[in-house]
């Protein structure tokens, strides 16, 4: 660790990184650059308060309220704000709708851009090299690995979030859910369906 933080250290084993992180944390606390309670608050917020339940509520509302759905597709930031969600990494939202003929799928090839206020923090696979490399060039193969077999006629639209716009996929409402309440519908909505790597069914 003698050469930190230059660009030449090697992939460190877990214990070495843990040690490095511990030292950094105690240093930043001692220098009053971070407040330990703020660190706890940040982790708690994104581990427990903000997550895909928010997005599921947005989707269920769109499925049951046509005027909300129109607003969501025209001005997603404003529509999502009416449910009380917004802020960091969701400042400028766009919602794209899956239909019988179009399947949308979201990636960030350069880093890990993801709509935090509605989906929380991204799963590790979303940030991994394989997904970032392949979602744009072979989306159908990637979807197959996720267990989604799309008919050849279905058009795939990939959205590479390269700037500050964050994308939310509005999945198709599963068949056989005509009698479901909004909250029952929300239960059906998976995180992955809102990234565009899952297709929903009522028998989840």
């Amino acid at each position, binding site marked *: 660790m*003698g050469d930190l933080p230059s660009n030449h250290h090697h992939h460190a084993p877990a214990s070495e990184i843990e040690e490095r992180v511990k030292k950094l944390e105690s240093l930043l606390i001692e220098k*009053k650059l971070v407040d330990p309670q703020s660190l706890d608050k940040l982790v708690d917020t994104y581990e427990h308060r903000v997550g895909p339940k928010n997005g599921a509520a947005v989707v269920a509302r769109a499925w049951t309220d046509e005027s909300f759905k129109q607003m969501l597709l025209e001005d997603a930031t404003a529509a999502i704000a009416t449910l009380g969600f917004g802020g960091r990494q969701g400042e400028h939202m766009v919602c794209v709708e899956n239909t019988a003929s179009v399947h949308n799928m979201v990636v960030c090839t350069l880093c890990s851009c993801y709509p935090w206020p509605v989906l929380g923090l991204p799963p590790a696979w979303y940030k991994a090299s394989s997904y970032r490399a392949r979602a744009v060039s072979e989306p159908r193969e990637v979807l197959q690995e996720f267990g989604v077999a799309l008919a050849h006629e279905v058009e795939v639209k990939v959205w590479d979030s390269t700037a500050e716009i964050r994308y939310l996929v509005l999945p198709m409402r599963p068949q056989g859910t005509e009698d479901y309440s909004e909250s029952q519908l929300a239960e059906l909505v998976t995180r992955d369906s809102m990234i565009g790597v899952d297709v929903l069914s009522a028998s989840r």
Partner: protein
Amino acid sequence: MNGAHDLGGKHGFGEVDYSQQENFVHAWEEKVFAMTLACGMLGQWNLDQSRFARERADPAEYLAGSYYEHWLHGLEILLVEHGMVTEQELQSGKSDSPTPLTAATPRRVDEIIGSGGPTELDDAAPALFSVGDTVVVNTDNTTMHTRAPTYVKGKAGRIVSHYGSHIFADEHAATGKKQPQHLYCVKFSADSLWSDAARQGDSVHLDLFEPYLISLQQHIASLQNLDA
């Protein structure tokens, strides 16, 4: 810069490991996440400078390292570059000198998360392009932070949305200045990016700032220069 982070279309990474369902895999990653956000709230650098710090990692190290190792490395770089900690302090974990900065309180953290950092910015010059225009991504091989991935450089696409003007990430990372630039969503046919491998009709959409784009006419004119 077209470093190891510029991954779109690259081969050799194998199948997506779908078992990686969690955001945080190890407990230390939570700490790195929280420290990165909390230090960002000190206002000494912006988000684009933070992204650029991660991208500047050695390419071999970037690919071998996990996501939050990139964050840890980026945070250490920024703290040292801004004179907030020294390399010696990083090694010892003990403070050698105080800083005049004040940590964000939990209440302030809530406010910042709630308001976020909107990037929309007025005052850009009139837009050069309109929805429906065919544009070509320029081949500027900048060594600085950019949001134009290699896999679309030199490719032609169609503008499908104009998102107004936003803080230009390249300038923001380089100088910290908030320069407005028009932001467009450009649709590329998968076929034009990947040829035979793609199904006809599939497409990839990217959000691209105006300085990345040239008109089709400009592109053709640049080809004619070959004869000169």
